[in-house]
Every structure is written in C-alpha cells, then in structure tokens.
C-alpha cells in the first residue's frame, strides 16, 4: 500500500481518517472522504490486530464512508440526504479538539505544575471511627461494589464475543463458497446480528474480489449480489 501507517498511531477511526486525508493533502470534504474510502478499507483489512473492542467503531465509520462514496458515484441515490455531511462535520469538530490537544500537550510540556498542601497542619493521628458503622452494613457496602464491578468485568467479554473480525468473516465466506460454487450476499448476511456484521461481510467480499478469488454480479441496483467462485464462473 502507498501509505505506511502504524496502528499504534491511531486511537480511533476519526484519527485514521484525518491522517489519510492529510496524506492526500486535501481538506475535509465529501470528495476527500470518498477519495480515501478505499485506503481506509484497505487499512482495516491489513490490520487484523485492531483490538476487537475498537473494531466496531472503525467499522461504523467504514459504513458511513461507503455511503458517502456510493452517493458521489451514484448521485441519483439521494436517500437519507440530510445525513450526508454528518461524518464531514464530525470529522471537522474532531480535528479542532485534536489540534487543541496538541496545544494542551505543549502547555503540560512547560511543566508549570501548581502545588498545594497535602497534609492538614498540626493534626495528630487519633482514632475517630464512624460511630454508626456495623459489620452488616460493611457487607452491604462490599456487595454494592461487587455489583458495580459486574458491568465492567463483563463488558469487554461481551464486545469480543459480538464483534466479528474481518478475517474470520473472509474465512467463512471462502468456506461457504468452497462448498457451493455460488451464493447470494443476502443469504450470507441473513443471520447477521447487527449492521456491523453486514458491513464486515461486505468488506470481506470486497477483499475477496480484490484477491480475485470471487466475482460478483448484480443485475439491478438493490438486487441481491451473487458471488461466484472464479474457477467456477461459466466461460
């Protein structure tokens, strides 16, 4: 790929998008977003190491980019026009705060830390217990803490379980195609649990097309996409 970007550099999809646009020396606009869409998708495909808990956020932006690109390529498609510049303005705002964060970093770099007292003056260590506290109440307090932790210790597992990695999906599509020489995109995503999974499937499909493992045909706009194994395509 023409762009050499390392994952650690990016904390999120907007950061990645900005970098891609800057590499093209363009301003943030619908046109520049459409232009970097392919690079963005390529980046996702080349980085299976994106942590699963972050992948969902990257994929949402991927789907919005695809929408923008399809609108520019197919201008007669104007469904949901009011949302069209959503990503553009979001990115502009993000950029303002990103720039501000560099100013903040410079301020911190000057090390003009302000110091305060930490200890109370002239206080002898005595013994001042909470008069009303009993052991039963302590057990209740501890249980409440455990309950609060529930939300935190379970969440990451939930994200990991629900997020489908692009590479897994590619493997899945390849396996399905190996068995049947052709299949429809609709049947592939029929059981998808989320929009993300559909986007992932679509990205996986694009990837396979690029690898020339499959060819796709679509008779009419919004018709189902039919996927054929290359060696099985009738001559």
């Amino acid at each position, binding site marked *: 790929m023409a762009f050499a970007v390392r994952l650690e550099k990016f904390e999120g999809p907007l950061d990645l998008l900005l970098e891609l646009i800057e590499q093209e020396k363009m301003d943030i606009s619908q046109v520049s977003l459409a232009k970097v869409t392919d690079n963005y998708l390529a980046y996702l495909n080349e980085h299976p190491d994106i942590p699963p808990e972050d992948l969902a956020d990257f994929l949402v932006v991927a789907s919005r980019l695809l929408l923008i690109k399809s609108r520019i390529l197919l201008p007669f498609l104007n469904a949901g026009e009011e949302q069209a510049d959503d990503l553009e303005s979001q990115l502009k705002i993000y950029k303002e705060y990103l720039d*501000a964060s560099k100013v*903040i970093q410079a301020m911190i770099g000057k090390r003009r830390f302000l110091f305060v007292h930490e200890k109370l003056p002239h206080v002898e260590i005595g013994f001042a217990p909470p008069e009303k506290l009993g052991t039963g109440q302590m057990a209740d307090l501890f249980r409440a803490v455990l309950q609060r932790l529930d939300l935190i210790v379970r969440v990451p597992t939930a994200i990991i379980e629900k997020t489908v990695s692009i590479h897994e999906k590619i493997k899945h599509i390849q396996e399905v195609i190996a068995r049947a020489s052709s299949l429809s995109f609709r049947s592939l995503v029929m059981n998808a649990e989320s929009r993300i999974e559909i986007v992932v499937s679509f990205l996986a499909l694009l990837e396979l097309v690029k690898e020339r493992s499959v060819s796709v045909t679509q008779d009419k706009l919004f018709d189902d996409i039919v996927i054929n194994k290359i060696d099985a395509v009738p001559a």
Partner: protein
Amino acid sequence: MLSQKIESILFVAARPMSLKKLAEVCGADKEEVAKAVEEIAAVYNRDERGVRILRNGSDVQMSTAPACSKLVQDFLKDETTGELTKPSLETLTIVAYRGPISKPELEQIRGVNCSLILRNLMLRGLVEAVGETDNAPASYRVTMDFVRFLGVSSVEELPEYDKLRSHENVVRILEMAQQPAAGQAAAGTAGESGAAAPAVSEPEKSSAEPA
C-alpha cells in the same frame, strides 16, 4: 469578615473546597461565599504573586503560582514528569473544554467508545464524575489536579476556550446525536457491540469530598 474566614480555610484545607462546603464552614450563604471568593482571587491572581486561587466548577483551592513551578518542584523534590498518552490527552482536552460532558457526547466527538479511557482517567484522578443521580447519568469534568497540571487557574483560561466550548458544529452534531434517527452511528455502535455505558461512575466528586 467572610473573605478573611474563607482565605484561612483555603490556606489550611488539603483538598479542593466546594462553595457549598465553604458556606457551611463559614456559616454564610453560598452567593456571599462565591462573591468573597471572587474578591480573594482578584487579590491573589496577579502576575507578581506567588500564590494562586484555582477554580474548577464550584470548587476552589489555593496553590503556588505557575511562575514558581520549577523552584517549588525542586524544593519538594517532586518527580512529576507529565507524560500522557495520546488517547488520554485527547480525552482530557475534550473534557476540559466541554465539561461537564456526558459519555455519549464525548463518544460522539471522539468517534470511539470511551468507557475504558474514562475509567482510566478517573483512576488517575484526572477526570471525575459529577451529578449522577438515579435519574440522570453522570457527567464528567477534569479534576482540580488536572487544572494544576496545566498550570492555569481554571479551564476557562485555556486557549480559545469560548470557541471550543460552544462550537456551533458541536452543538449541531450533539443535537443530531440525540435524535435516534439521524447521525447516531457512533453512539449506536456502542450499544450494538455490547459496550453500553457501564456505570463506572460514582455519585461522589472524589477529590472534593474525602471525609
């Protein structure tokens, strides 16, 4: 005299004091206290002085002046360096300018789920949750510690504060974020992927209410 009382309490207190707590301690009402704090701050916050009055929301604390940082740091043999990772910096910047800010608003601006980073910053005492009730989720703001770290008397002194705080586009995009139909992509994902707002926040303002 009220301002005298407040000044003495600010000098001995080893933590940020809320206007409410100051009013309670000094036996005055909150408006009077707020006014007296303004007066005290006007006396201290001058270039030639070595002590400052810091403000963070309705919290007040007394500290050394930014011009003396190096001297005081050496005197205390303090080893703070101030290294922050990029995600921390970015989140702190948005929370500093826009705080108190809700988690969905923050996520809308950053485009990523912010549960973990917020938790991390709260553990480090750089961000705190405020105003959480049974009916309302928490909002987040930077702590007095972070204000001290920046070397300003309050976040209002940050460059372009007014512009970045009330950016027209931010308002617009946040309005869109609140409409379920439009522009909810980022917030919607969080839900879909199972990352729906873990309540890692707390009802307390940790730095201001230790006892």
